[in-house]
């Protein structure tokens, strides 16, 4: 599995995506009009796709990172353990992302 490069790619995506987080926080501090602009963007189809992608990148990077952490501690090096950790991170990232968005839609009512 070539998951290490995905870990890097998601890391770089999250790095660039912090611009969106900065925009959101600065807009919240700036006032209603600026905040409405952010909401208009994150509410659009493209905006939702980007935030959905960002959610997945974050969840995948976190689980993949925990996998690296397990290795740092000196565990999980057997072939079957490596496979289990890798698949766990890959599938877990998707499951968590979908779960978060289901909860978000239930709370936000599609907002």
């Amino acid at each position, binding site marked *: 599995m070539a998951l290490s490069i995905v870990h890097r790619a998601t*890391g770089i995506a999250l790095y660039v995506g912090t611009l969106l*987080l900065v925009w959101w926080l600065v807009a919240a*501090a700036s006032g209603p009009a600026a905040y409405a602009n952010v909401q208009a963007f994150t509410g659009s189809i493209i905006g939702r796709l980007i935030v959905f992608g960002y959610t997945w990148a974050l969840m995948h990077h976190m689980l993949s990172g925990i996998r690296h952490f397990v290795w*740092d501690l000196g565990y999980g090096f057997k072939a079957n353990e490596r496979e289990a950790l890798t698949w766990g991170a890959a599938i877990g990232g998707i499951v968590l992302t979908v779960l978060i968005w289901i909860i978000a839609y239930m709370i936000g009512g599609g907002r």
Partner: protein
Amino acid sequence: MSTADTPKRSMRTPLGRVRNLGAAHSGTSDFWRQRLTAVAMVLLMIPVLVIIMMLLGRNQAGAKQILGSLPVAIIMLLFIIASAWHMKIGMQVVIEDYVHNEKLKLVSIMANNFFSIAVALASIYAILQLSSGV
């Protein structure tokens, strides 16, 4: 043993001075901080997700009220500091792996530092302004 490279007399042996510094000559501090900030963010992930969920569908006044409250602001500040630090180290590792031209590497690492610090400072300033009720 020569002391040509040590103008001031030191009680430390040459081996002692380089031990634990590794090939990058900077030791393992970045490795450690990368893990430290990672664990911090894992611990903060659920509170941060809860905060974001609380903000869904609210306008600026509602967002200001939530983000400006003390526990939320502290959690957000911790998360911002951990993530900015983490991404600065991570991007530096990527740069060091792929950029082999020394000058370009230097410029890239500088740009990485500027970007990460700017992201952190802008976010921190926004949170503090939301908290202060200005």
